[in-house]
């Protein structure tokens, strides 16, 4: 093999990689927040009395989950200006990530809410607990515990998906990598380094999620 690796050319641009990583983290956190909001609203809408509302939520979930994120982000990127909304690419990316993650969150949260059995709630009332306490202790906490593993792994996926946002030139790590690549022509080195950075980001996130889980959901269930 005659190729000589030159990671120095990439490391020279370390500040750019750092800012890109922060951009990725920002996109991911904002996307997670929006996904959670859409998820909760969607679950509430799915239990609505109006059949049209319920059907619309189901269509939304199915369409988003069965089309690629790349197509979704292009669609939103071109659709918003036609609706008279002009946003910078990064904000557009957050909206796309939130909509995509939101559809998955609706399904996950719905499963959690359905997992709390009616008898538990009645038992809570029979013990003389207030409505607020019943909701907080008997519905919310066990439901959160039930959905936590799937929701957090969905969040990790959302974080990895932020790399696709480079296609509309949002500010994040992959677009930083593409800039460095076009300046240095060290394609392999750039992408190898950036892949390692993503691995560090997702590992840290997984560790953090596990830590939170041990803090808040560490009680016996039976």
């Amino acid at each position, binding site marked *: 093999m005659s190729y000589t690796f030159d990671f120095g050319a990439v490391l020279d641009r370390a500040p750019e990689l750092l800012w890109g990583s922060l951009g990725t983290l920002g996109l991911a956190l904002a996307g997670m927040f929006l996904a959670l909001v859409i998820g909760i609203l969607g679950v509430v809408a799915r239990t609505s009395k109006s059949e049209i509302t319920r059907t619309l939520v189901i269509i939304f979930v199915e369409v988003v989950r*069965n089309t690629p994120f790349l197509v979704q982000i292009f669609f939103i990127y071109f659709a918003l200006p036609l609706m008279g909304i002009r946003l910078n690419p990064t904000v557009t990316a957050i909206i796309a990530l939130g909509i995509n993650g939101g559809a998955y969150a609706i399904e996950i949260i719905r499963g959690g809410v359905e997992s709390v059995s009616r008898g538990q709630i009645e038992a809570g009332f029979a013990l003389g607990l207030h409505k607020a306490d019943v909701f907080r202790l008997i519905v919310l906490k066990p439901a959160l515990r039930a959905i936590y593993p799937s929701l957090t792994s969905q969040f990790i996926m959302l974080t990895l998906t932020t*790399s696709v946002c480079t296609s509309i030139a949002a500010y994040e790590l992959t677009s930083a990598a593409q800039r460095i690549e076009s300046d240095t022509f060290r394609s*392999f080195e750039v992408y190898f380094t950036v892949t390692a950075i993503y691995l560090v980001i997702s590992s840290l996130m997984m560790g953090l999620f596990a830590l939170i889980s041990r803090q808040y959901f560490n009680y016996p269930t039976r």
Partner: protein
Amino acid sequence: MGPIGENEFFFLMQGLKWTVLLAIVGFIGGGIFGILIALLRTSKTKVARRITAGFIGVFQGTPLLMQLFVVYYGVALLGIEVNAWIAVAIAFTLHASAFLGEIWRGSIEAVPKGQTEAANALGLHYVSRMKDVILPQALKISMPATIGFLVQLIKGTSLAAIVGFIELTRAGQIISNQTYRPLLVFGIVGAIYFIICWPLSHAGSGLEKRMAKAAR
């Protein structure tokens, strides 16, 4: 603005052909290596378990887009002259083998331990125990998740567009640039993906519900 005519539609269909081919190659290649990884991951050898766990961890902890880029440029470095199609197919095969390996590891472990013990008691050796007793049961358990991953893989092939490979999404981008009708074009492209993915998702979740009912 230009019209979306027969030619444009034909171009999209050409792209669709590559999307489907890429998904099939990735799924079959990933399936073959995935079984291997699942078996190593559940083997008695600690080193094999560690290495496959690392392999799975790397592919599940990094973006598919980065995997495409690294493999795409990595293969070129090896000095072998390969076209974009082969490089992208290798990347999807590796990606799929990690995810399918992890899904199937879970299913192998979900087969009741008594089955292994019974097979041992009958004097079956490893190959026969796996091939005739454990894997058929594990395959059944894994079906919903395996179909779910196939849908993910089909959607994932769209990322080959960013590497420059002309599949359905890239074809859509090209037509969108020519006709200045992005919403119509990406609407059609999205609908095509939906027509492929939705029946699969539906079949997967239906199977999951039936299996959950049977287990009760």
